[in-house]
C-alpha cells in the first residue's frame, strides 16, 4: 500500500493525463444530474457531488448492450460476434459504497458454470479509482452493510480529500500501475496519512442511519409466508426506480431488436415489473406487488446471502432517496429484524 499526495490544483491535469491513456469514466454534471460519463473534450469530471444519480454499474452492465448481431439471408443466418472491448478503462470518482457493489457483482457474474463475459471483460480492463466520502448523507447506511465512507473494497485506488490536498492510496497492483504513470507524485507524509485516518473516522461516525442486518437473513428463511408482505407492498407503485438505481441490482432481459440489422440485446429489467415473470401462457407466479416486493427483499437479504455469504445491498441510499412514495427499505429491514424469533 502506497500513499501519494496531490495538490488540489493538480487534479484536472491528472484526469486529463488519464484520458490520454485510458477511456475514463467519471462523474459529470449535466442539468443538475450527476452521472458517470465517458470523459471527452466536451465535458469534465465533477467531484463536488454527494453521489451520482445512477450508480456506476452501467459502465460494466449497460442498460442496453448488444450481445451480437446477425444477418438473415432467406433461411440461413450468420452471427456476427462483438469483439470484447480491449481498451483500458479507468472508472474515476466512485464512492466506496458503489465500489463495494462491484465486489458483489463480480461474485455473481463470475459464479457458476457459465460466466457473464460481457460484464467480466469490461470489469477486468478497468481500474477503479475511488473517491472517499467525507460528508455522508442522512440516507447513507453503508456502515450497516460492511462498508464505510473511506472503504476500499472493490477499488484499485482511493482518492481522499484531506482539506487542503488529496491523498491517493494505492490498493492493488492495478492501482500501482496507474500511479507509476505519474512519477511526479510525491509520497505522502505521515501527518497526511494520519489526517486521512482521522477524517475517515469522522466520516464513519457521520453515518447516522443504521439498520440491523445481523439476523435478517435467518429470519427471512422462515418469513416467506409472513403477513408482513401483505402490508409493506401496498403503497409500492411497481416502478423500476429502486432496482434501476440500485448499484447491485443486475437482473436483465434478452431481446431481439428490430433495426437495419438483427441485434440481440441484453437490457436492464426489474423484478418489480409485472411482466418480469409473466409466462407465455399468461400465468404469472409473482402476480401482485406483494410477491414482487418479497422477491426484491428476499433476493438481497436472503437468497444472495445463501449463495455468496454477503448481503446484496451496499447501503448507498439511492432507493430511499428516489422512491416516489417514500417506501424506505430501511424500514422494511427494521420490520424484519423486529420480528420475534419463534
Amino acid at each position, binding site marked *: 500500500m502506497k500513499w501519494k499526495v496531490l495538490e488540489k490544483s493538480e487534479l484536472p491535469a491528472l484526469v486529463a493525463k488519464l484520458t490520454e491513456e485510458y477511456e475514463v469514466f467519471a462523474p459529470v454534471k449535466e442539468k443538475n444530474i450527476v452521472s458517470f460519463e465517458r470523459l471527452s473534450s466536451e465535458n469534465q469530471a465533477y467531484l463536488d457531488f454527494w453521489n451520482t444519480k445512477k450508480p456506476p454499474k452501467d459502465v460494466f452492465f449497460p442498460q442496453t448492450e448488444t450481445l451480437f448481431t446477425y444477418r438473415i439471408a432467406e433461411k440461413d*443466418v450468420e452471427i456476427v460476434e462483438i469483439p470484447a472491448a480491449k481498451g483500458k478503462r479507468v472508472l474515476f470518482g466512485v464512492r466506496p459504497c458503489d465500489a463495494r457493489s462491484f465486489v458483489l457483482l463480480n461474485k455473481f457474474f463470475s459464479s457458476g458454470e457459465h460466466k457473464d463475459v460481457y460484464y467480466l471483460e469490461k470489469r477486468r480492463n478497468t481500474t477503479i479509482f475511488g473517491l472517499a466520502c467525507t460528508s455522508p448523507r442522512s440516507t447513507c447506511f453503508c456502515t450497516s452493510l460492511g462498508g464505510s465512507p473511506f472503504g476500499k473494497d472493490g477499488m484499485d485506488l482511493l482518492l481522499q480529500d484531506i482539506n487542503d490536498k488529496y491523498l491517493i492510496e494505492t490498493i492493488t497492483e492495478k492501482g500501482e500501475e496507474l500511479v507509476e504513470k505519474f512519477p511526479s507524485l510525491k509520497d505522502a507524509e505521515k501527518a497526511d496519512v494520519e489526517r486521512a485516518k482521522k477524517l475517515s473516522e469522522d466520516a464513519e461516525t457521520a453515518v447516522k442511519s443504521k439498520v440491523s442486518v445481523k439476523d435478517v437473513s435467518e429470519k427471512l428463511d422462515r418469513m*416467506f409466508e409472513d403477513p408482513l408482505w401483505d402490508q409493506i407492498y401496498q403503497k409500492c407503485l411497481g416502478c423500476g426506480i429502486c432496482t434501476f438505481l440500485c448499484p447491485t441490482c443486475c437482473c436483465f432481459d*434478452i431481446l431481439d431488436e428490430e433495426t437495419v440489422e438483427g441485434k440481440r440485446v441484453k437490457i436492464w429489467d426489474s423484478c418489480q415489473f409485472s411482466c418480469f415473470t409473466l*409466462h407465455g401462457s399468461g400465468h404469472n407466479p409473482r402476480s401482485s406487488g406483494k410477491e414482487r416486493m418479497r422477491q426484491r427483499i428476499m433476493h438481497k437479504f436472503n437468497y444472495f446471502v445463501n449463495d455468496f455469504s454477503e448481503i446484496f445491498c451496499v447501503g448507498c441510499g439511492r432507493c430511499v432517496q428516489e422512491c416516489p412514495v417514500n417506501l424506505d427499505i430501511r424500514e422494511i429491514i427494521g420490520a424484519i429484524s423486529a420480528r420475534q424469533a419463534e
Partner: protein
Amino acid sequence: MNNPYIPNLAAIRKIIIENEAKDIKTFELVFKDPEAMKNFRYKCGQFAEISVFGAGECPIGLASSPMDEDCIQFTVKKVGVVTTALHNCEEGTVIGVRGPYGNGFPLERMEGRNVIIVGGGFAFTTLRSLTKFILHEANRDRFKDLTVIYGARNPGELVYKYDLEAWGKRDDINLNVTIDRAVPGWTGLVGFVPAVLKEVAPSSDNALAIVCGPPIMYKFTMPVINELGFRPEDVFLSFEMKMKCGIGKCGRCNIGNKFVCKDGPVFSYKEFQMMPKEY
C-alpha cells in the same frame, strides 16, 4: 473466455406435427457445424435456449434421446412470441441453440431400480427423451422395470403417437396411455392420470418416480404417489418458469433461492416441499 450467450446455428431438418390442433410440433435439428453437433452432449431432462432470429429466445426441453446422435429434437407448443415464430419456420430454416442447460433427471440414481414415469399433456417431451433413453438397447439392462403412465385430454392431443405405438409392442415397458374422457374409437384407458396411476399402482419398492405435467396434475398426482409409498427423495418433478438467460444470471426463474434454470428444472419432491409456493 467462453461466451455463453452465442447460440450454435442449427437447421431444421424435419418438422413433425404432433397433435390434431396442430399447435404442437416436433422440430428435428442438425447443427451447421458438425463439431458442435458432436460436442452437444446432454442428459435427459435438460433444456436448451432456442433462438428464432428476429423473435428472440425461449427455453425448450430436449425431446430427443441422448442416444440419437445425428440430430436433436424439441417439441414445441405454440404459445408466445418465439414459439409462434418457430411454428412459422419451414424445414431448412436456420435457428439458434444454446445449451444444454439444467440438471436433468437423476439417471445415476435410477440405475438398478424400477422406474415409474408419469406425464400429462404436452409436458411429456422430456419424459419421452427419458423413456427412449432407457429403452435403448445399450441402456435397457441398467434399469429394472419401466412403467410409463401418460395422459392427454383426448386422443388427438397425444404426442409421439409413433413412439407410443412402437413402445406398445414391446414387453420391456409397462405402457399406460390414457385420455381424460371417453370418445368413440378410443379403446385404451380412460381417466385422469392420478386415477390411472392409482389403478396401475406400481410398487414403490426399489423404485423411483419421475412426474412431469401441468401444476394441476402435480396437485392430484402427488397424494397418490405418497399413498403408493414413495419416499419424497425418490420422486422427481420437472418445473417450468419464465426464463431468459438459462444460466442463472438474468434473475427471474427462481423459486426461493433455487434457480429453475441451473439448479433445476428437475427437483426431488423432498426439495420441492422445502421450496416456497411461488411457481
